[in-house]
């Protein structure tokens, strides 16, 4: 087997495209890579001191829906017409939380103008794929109920569809309201309904152009 990571990821003779791999392991978040964009009040993104904890994403305990993104500070290097986003999600015990993660064109509001996002928590009854094409945003549910069980999800965009897979099984295919503007990886949390700390964990994120 080749020693080269590049040769394992790219067929011989092909030129690799933009990619990022984040394992969320270490003593602090890599703030060269990541930007914390607070939307309401204050949320935190910090390594979890627990086995397989990855990154612990937390709201503060206040009301008014504290919410925030982890983003690339609107440095958008990913192509919504040809991308793949792979990550993990483990929702905390409190169900009153909104979770979104995937790619989006901006981090300035709860719904980026262009996006393709896995959605979980009390935003939906079932894990879902939400997309927005610059003006219209829609969401399609999977058949997997929201729970605190950790799962792997995968969003693939090819210009004609965005496909959400959960734990390796294709669950949602969307062909309308797909993003078209350049995007960045996004991880989002929102406290909903009650005043308490809400959390979710992410231990892996990979995004690349295809």
């Amino acid at each position, binding site marked *: 087997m080749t020693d080269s990571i590049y040769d394992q990821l790219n067929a011989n003779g*092909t030129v690799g495209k933009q*990619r990022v791999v984040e394992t969320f392991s270490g003593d602090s978040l890599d703030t*060269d890579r990541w930007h914390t964009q607070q939307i309401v009040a204050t949320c935190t993104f910090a390594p979890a001191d627990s086995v397989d904890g990855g990154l612990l994403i937390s709201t503060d305990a206040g009301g008014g829906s504290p919410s925030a993104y982890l983003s690339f500070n609107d440095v958008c290097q990913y192509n919504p017409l040809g991308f793949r986003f792979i990550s993990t999600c483990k929702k905390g015990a409190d169900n009153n939380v909104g979770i979104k993660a995937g790619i989006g064109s901006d981090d300035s509001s709860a719904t980026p103008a262009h996006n393709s996002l896995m959605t979980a928590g009390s935003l939906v009854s079932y894990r879902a794929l939400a997309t927005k094409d610059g003006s219209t945003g829609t969401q399609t549910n999977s058949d997997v109920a929201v729970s605190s069980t950790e799962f792997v999800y995968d969003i693939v965009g090819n210009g004609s569809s965005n496909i959400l897979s959960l734990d390796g099984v294709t669950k949602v295919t969307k062909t309308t309201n797909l993003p078209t503007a350049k995007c960045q990886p996004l991880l989002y949390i929102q406290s909903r309904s009650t005043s308490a700390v809400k959390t979710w964990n992410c231990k892996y994120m990979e995004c690349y152009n295809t």
Partner: protein
Amino acid sequence: MAYKQHFIEWFSGKQLPSYWTGAQVAGSGGSASMADAIDGGINVNSGSGSNNSYAIYFNNKRQYSATGSVMINVSKINVSTNYRGGGVGMSNVHATNGNNYIYFQNTASNTYIKAVSRSTSGLFSDTSVTQDANYHSFKGECKSSSAEFTIDGGLQVTHTTNLPTLALQPFIYADDSSSVSADMRCIYCEAYNT
């Protein structure tokens, strides 16, 4: 087999990671910043003026062997006009004004991308890949008695003289020779000892 030094850089995120150092090699006004563009990677800019050059490197932390290492880089000149662009490779000093390096000279004033190696004097060889503003994958391998230069999966040039002898570090540089600044874009860098 013992694990050897290995480094991977995706050049994706809000800014250049702090384990890279940026330096103005000549002139002024250069920079290195993430490009807000699809497949944008890092943009290394020479600075505007005449004969400016800017490089990113490991601040002379040289962990790669001149006689047993590989460098892989996906990069392009972000210009199509006839002024200089830059290069990617591994060097003992932070840029091509020092001794001991191998690199690909990805410069718009050339017809072909060049393979370059140097200990005390430089050897410049044309590859068969025409200079353009497209991304290419560059692989340079330092062996005990040769240096091999591969572009887009095809071996282009093998040097058996003018080989570096001192330890190396990755570097990427942009270089201009006119009043227009030059940009090098890079979306991947990997280096490892063999």
